């Protein structure tokens, strides 16, 4: 094999740090170790300058007017928590209602669930079979108590890209703060908080070839000026919204990763889309009863989510896990032992959630790897179908839904 095995195709869970990113981080662990809040010596100045540069780079990537609008956090989860809980607490006298979608990632859903226990009310707007949220449904859900719309940019499982500019427009029209979880989109596709009318935007470094442990929340300062109750109290760093010593090496790496992503995005997204389309064509043309999950066009260029009817996702991964790293929406692969709520929200039925596989390509994947993975997936699914009682029944013409199943 001309490539390294196992092949990583799980870039929506994390990405490798780009070597160019690592290079700029290293000095900040050793000789440039200063605290950016040390105002009276060169160690502090050096660190502060590096953090400022990183802040500018992240701001530029997301179209923020002012780098001060970028608040560094420990990652996407913290940014999402800060946005949702910070707004709920700060604006509690204005209202207590939040509108979000059913397919947000866990951080968004769980932050909302906690707020519900604390007396907020939350509307979880459903999505269509392609994973798209209907802006009119959001409009209908808004009441005079609504203080926040929280909608993800692109889904972490199916890659569907939501109509963010339309939602931004609606938020502006209604005078409601709009938070967008853009952890899967930033660095991959164009994101512009000004053009898209986003007031709060979460992102994370490790999904864009930066280090784990750092992310950011964009917090709009003008039209409107968004205020947040901090989740962490302390020295008042990050404009008082996120106390705690800034992890300078991580932030510097995040900045470099943002700069690289901005530069290579047009070429990289086109290249990954071509590879993704090749993988999709290989699989769809070689196997029967395979279903694309998500929207056929409006999705991330590196994402491919397919349900292989009559085979269970974990068994597919098991057949490949020495060679390929991918993930599944099957219950057996989740910590909760529930099948993917995202696939289930598409209304395709839980059996197809159990059979779903997500391929997520990244910067370092090659055409050769895609050919290899496509071929192996087809082999493994074919083998598993030969031992699937459901495939046998389907081939005999039995409607599987007509059988009275006794759940085990």
């Amino acid at each position, binding site marked *: 094999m001309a490539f390294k095995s196992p092949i990583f195709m799980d870039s929506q869970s994390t990405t490798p740090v780009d070597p160019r990113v690592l290079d700029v981080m290293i000095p900040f662990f050793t000789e440039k170790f200063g605290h950016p809040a040390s105002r009276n010596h060169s160690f502090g100045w050096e660190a502060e300058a590096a953090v400022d540069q990183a802040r500018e780079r992240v701001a530029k990537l997301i179209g923020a007017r002012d780098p001060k609008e970028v608040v560094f956090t420990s990652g996407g989860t913290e940014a999402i928590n800060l946005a949702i809980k910070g707004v709920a607490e700060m604006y509690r006298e204005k209202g207590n209602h939040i509108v979000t979608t059913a397919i947000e990632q866990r951080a968004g859903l769980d932050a909302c669930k906690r707020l519900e226990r604390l007396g907020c009310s939350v509307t979880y707007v459903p999505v269509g079979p392609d994973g798209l949220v209907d802006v009119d449904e959001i409009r209908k859900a808004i009441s005079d108590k609504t203080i926040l719309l929280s909608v993800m940019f692109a889904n972490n499982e199916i890659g569907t890209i939501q109509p963010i500019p339309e939602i931004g427009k609606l938020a502006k029209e209604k005078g409601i703060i709009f938070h967008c979880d853009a952890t899967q989109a930033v660095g991959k596709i164009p994101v512009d908080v000004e053009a898209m009318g986003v007031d709060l935007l979460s992102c994370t470094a490790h999904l864009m070839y930066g280090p784990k442990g750092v992310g950011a929340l964009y917090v709009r300062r003008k039209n409107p000026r968004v205020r947040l109750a901090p989740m962490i109290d302390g020295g008042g760093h990050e404009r008082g919204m996120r106390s705690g010593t800034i992890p300078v090496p991580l932030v510097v790496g995040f900045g470099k990763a943002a700069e690289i992503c901005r530069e290579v995005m047009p070429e990289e997204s086109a290249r990954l889309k071509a590879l993704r389309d090749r993988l999709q064509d290989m699989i769809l043309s070689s196997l029967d009863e395979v279903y694309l999950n998500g929207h056929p066009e409006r999705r991330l260029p590196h994402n491919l989510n397919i349900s292989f009817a009559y085979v*269970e996702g*974990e*068994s597919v991964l098991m057949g490949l896990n020495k060679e390929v790293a991918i993930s599944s929406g099957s*219950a*057996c692969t989740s910590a909760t032992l529930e099948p993917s709520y995202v696939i289930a929200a598409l209304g395709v039925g*839980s059996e197809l959630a159990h059979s779903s596989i997500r391929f997520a390509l990244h910067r370092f994947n090659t055409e050769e790897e895609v050919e290899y993975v496509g071929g192996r997936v087809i082999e493994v699914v074919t083998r598993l179908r030969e*031992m*699937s*009682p459901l495939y*046998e029944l389907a081939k005999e013409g039995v409607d599987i839904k007509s059988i009275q199943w006794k759940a085990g």
Partner: protein
Amino acid sequence: MAYSEKVIDHYNNPRNVGSFSKDAPGVGTGLVGAPECGDVMKLQIKVDLSTGIIEDAKFKTFGCGSAIASSSLATEWLKGKSIEEAMKIKNTDIVNELKLPPVKIHCSVLAEDAIKAALTDYREKWAKKETPAGSTAS
């Protein structure tokens, strides 16, 4: 999650994959689980009607590697046993043999259910002299 060597072996080299005709003499079929739960097992036995011994067994499973391994192992164990002996196979035997972790115990339970369902089906079809299952409350 790491799989035990035995699970990997059964997954890579499943024993006795296949099907018998449901109506063939001496064949009992069990179909348990549900597609929406992510596990369905079909397990079949073929009994030598003159001796009452299970001479062959086959399975097909929709499920994770542990479910495939549990049913594959079950078919191995069934061969050569009488119906009474086969009835004594417990899910805990499968757990111990395959070293299944707690989250995979349901796979072994499903395999035991599949064995019981196949044996019951066999009795109903081919050993009518025995008391039908469920007719006594004891």
